[in-house]
């Protein structure tokens, strides 16, 4: 019985952790779809969001939800800056220079934050005023529950937005053929900015959500981002549903394997899973195999 409970506990943690990956993965996917580029600074979006919360809530002592809103507005502005500073000048180039540019941005952001906020990791308040609930020996942390709920809500919103609005379709069109989109009168620069803004806000939300659990530190985003990226590939490169399922799957695999096999190799399981996927199903769970019509 205890073993069952322990497994359930591990499963819950895995799902919660997985939904953090999923949230960051979603940000990845949006940018991939808009620009065909993997944003290696995606994890740092989460880091920035969390530091925004530290600034507005901890330092300036604004009310929680006001601070939350302010952090997200700051992230939105940052998204525009990021687009014009890191991506836009390189939009006509292949994926590689852009990828390196985002890596450079990651180094820049982490060290800038380090210079401003100092190196000490910082605690952050939970979203709800309760520690969590205990169901028959399984402890459900309130913040983890919030992560699950917010992730589901954001995913649903994103899906509806992309699949059922013309704006969403315009964003997709922009990602598929920029020049054609311009010829149709779609304001491409604006579309890309919107994507970066949305992606930055999503990252910010992820940061504020995980801040209370992993604490707010310079490197907090990098760890999550690599896993989230793995999740996007496992789910199917550039696929929204795939990113979510991939993230959750990765979280669960990691937690269960850590519990049942060995803790120190925890990170290796994620990458092994990725390896296996890449070798045997490179298009991911939901990816379509688009064969080249030569």
């Amino acid at each position: 019985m205890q073993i069952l409970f322990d497994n359930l506990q591990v499963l819950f943690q895995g799902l919660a952790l997985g939904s953090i990956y999923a949230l960051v993965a979603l940000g990845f996917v949006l940018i991939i779809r808009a620009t065909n580029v993997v944003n290696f600074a995606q994890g740092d979006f989460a880091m920035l969001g969390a530091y925004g919360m530290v600034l507005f809530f901890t330092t300036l002592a604004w009310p929680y939800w006001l601070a939350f809103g302010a952090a997200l507005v700051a992230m939105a502005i940052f998204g525009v800056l990021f687009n014009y500073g890191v991506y836009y000048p390189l939009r006509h180039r292949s994926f590689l220079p852009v990828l390196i540019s985002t890596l450079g941005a990651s180094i820049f952001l982490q060290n800038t934050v380090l210079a401003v906020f100092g190196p000490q990791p910082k605690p952050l308040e939970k979203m709800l005023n309760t520690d969590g609930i205990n169901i028959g020996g399984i402890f459900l942390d309130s913040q983890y529950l919030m992560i699950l709920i917010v992730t589901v809500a954001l995913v649903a919103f994103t899906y509806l937005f992309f699949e059922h609005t013309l704006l969403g379709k315009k964003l997709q069109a922009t990602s598929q053929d920029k020049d054609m989109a311009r010829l149709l009168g779609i304001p491409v620069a604006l579309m890309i900015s919107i994507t970066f803004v949305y992606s930055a806000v999503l990252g910010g939300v992820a940061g504020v959500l995980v801040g209370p659990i992993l604490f707010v530190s310079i490197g907090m985003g990098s760890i999550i981002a690599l896993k989230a990226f793995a999740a996007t590939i496992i789910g199917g490169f550039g696929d929204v549903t795939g990113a979510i399922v991939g993230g959750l799957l990765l979280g669960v695999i990691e937690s269960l394997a850590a519990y049942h096999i060995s803790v120190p190799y925890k990170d290796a399981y994620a990458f092994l899973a990725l390896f296996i996927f890449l070798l045997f199903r490179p298009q991911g769970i939901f990816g379509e195999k688009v064969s080249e019509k030569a």
Partner: protein
Amino acid sequence: MALLELRNVTSHYGNVQALKGVSLHVEAGELVTLLGANGAGKSTTLKTISGLVQATEGDVLFEGQSIKRTGPEAIARLGISHVPEGRRIFPGLTVRENILLGASNRKGVPRKQLEKEADEKFEIFPEIKPFSGALGWTLSGGQQQMLAVARGLMAKPKLLLLDEPSLGLAPLIVQNLFATIRQIRTGGMTILLVEQNANMALQVADRAYVMETGVIVTSGPADELSQTEDIKRAYLGG
């Protein structure tokens, strides 16, 4: 006043000077075709009109206003719809979505109205109607070309630019396509058509320009040109 006028336009494509002083005009309601060999600068002329390529010298006037320094998005909003070479269908969107996005240059049109117009387009191009929900990349070349024109028409343009619509299409499809182009022109649309298939183009056009290495070498009414010996030999394969 001509609807579109190019005055001595020079432009560069990469490092190559593609246009060397091109002047032409299109009157409202006309179907004008621009003929010439590969690399003569026909596509660059269209790109210069729609803003994808910037003219370095000369001027481009649309309804009397210079659009030389205007970006492609803004030009699309002025009412020029460019159906580029190679169709450029959005591969990951459905046929219907592709058509709907054709109206991106029109502000404030309700979704319902757009859906209705899309249905009308399916009436003009019945070949693609059955594929309404299919993704763009799954269509054949001919179907993609129909879709591209349908999408171009969704812009409700004052001027439609068609670039090599017949390229890579089977003869029968080419005939159907040109029949459709004639039909659209009869409906009152102003069209500037770039073609290599001079034979077909001259059959539907009112006037024609012939281009060689970045300059206009001949122009005149289509039926006159199609009788000229030089043209026959160089472009009509006779």
